[in-house]
């Protein structure tokens, strides 16, 4: 879990750097195209969030299985 989180942080820091270098990735992704991209981003975040919850639930139940 910890390695996964640090990996995520690494990716995010790269993304942040990319943003400061060129003003465009966020502008072009979130403002272009009649703003449909922000809807896609929102749906992606929701699916990712439910996925992370499922993953943790899976581990919790695995722990119960080991105990029983």
């Amino acid at each position, binding site marked *: 879990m910890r390695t996964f989180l640090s990996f995520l942080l690494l990716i995010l820091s790269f993304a942040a750097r990319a943003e400061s270098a060129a003003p465009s990735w966020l502008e072009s992704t979130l403002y272009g195209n009649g703003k449909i991209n922000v809807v896609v981003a929102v749906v992606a*975040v929701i699916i990712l969030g439910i996925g992370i919850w499922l993953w943790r639930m899976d581990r919790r139940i695995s722990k*119960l299985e080991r105990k029983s």
Partner: protein
Amino acid sequence: MRNWWKFLGIGLLLFASVAGFWVPLAPALVHVSPDRIAPGPVELTITGYNTRFGPGALVSLKNADQTICAKSVVARDAGHVTARFEIPAGMKENLTDVAVDDLIYTGALFTEELGSGIESSICPEPYPSPTGFTFPNRSILYESIRNLHFHVPMWFTMIALMGISVFQSIKVLGSNSLDQDLTAEMAVRIGLVFCVLGLVTGALWARATWGAFWTNDVKLNGAAVTGLIYVAYLVLRGSVQDAHKRARLSAIYNIFAFILLVLFLFVVPRLNAIDSLHPGNGGNSGFNDLDLDSRLRMIFYPAVLGWILLGCWMYDLRVRAARLANALDR
């Protein structure tokens, strides 16, 4: 079939998500160039979204009681039309609105050098163009109006779960049941998942519409504080060792937490003294003022119910896992 509500929830989510993406936006005029005009010959290029401009497009400039028709119109494609006008010198008011067929873009223009008389021309009436089932096309929002069906149900689900939790907590005060205390805790935990999803999706939507991930909007801060209050509920539970004492103490805290949730999410943002960017709050009108809002509602309400049922399913699983864990510990 005691699991019917799970099927119902998934079915509603499927319907709302597919329809939320599939239904097209209503045609609208989105850009007029140039946006400052003066008396004399003027050539305007008008950009439409989801429009079907044809050779016979009727273009006119309007204000409250004057109309100037285009001298010539060239529809470059379905989304662009170029129109030439001869603006008279005797305009009394600014020409502010641009109309193409039955679409009107209000506040698109500023007219310089006004006169004192009224000059207006009578333009041919456009036929109302037939439209199918569409979502409203609002400036600033455009396609992101679809987020209504994804971002807002997160909050409805959180509130429903916190409601289940406070209901269980009130029962705990009467029964001292540790099992009811467990269900109250798990409802808060699932509610917080939806709170985080609501905050993150809201931040993305805010960036695209208001220009910043976080604004000092009352509803944003209220939602964040509400989330923190419920995190504090979990911290409080962790700090009390005795199980029965923990159940009673956290039940009382939970009742106050729910009252604060109602205050922060429903009462404070609606106070007239406070301005809010959120629709339906402060002096800001909701989606209710749209004549097409019934179309949004037909997707929105199933989405809300679907997400609440999914949240209840997650809560059900979490409670069952926690009960199993307790039984194994004993």
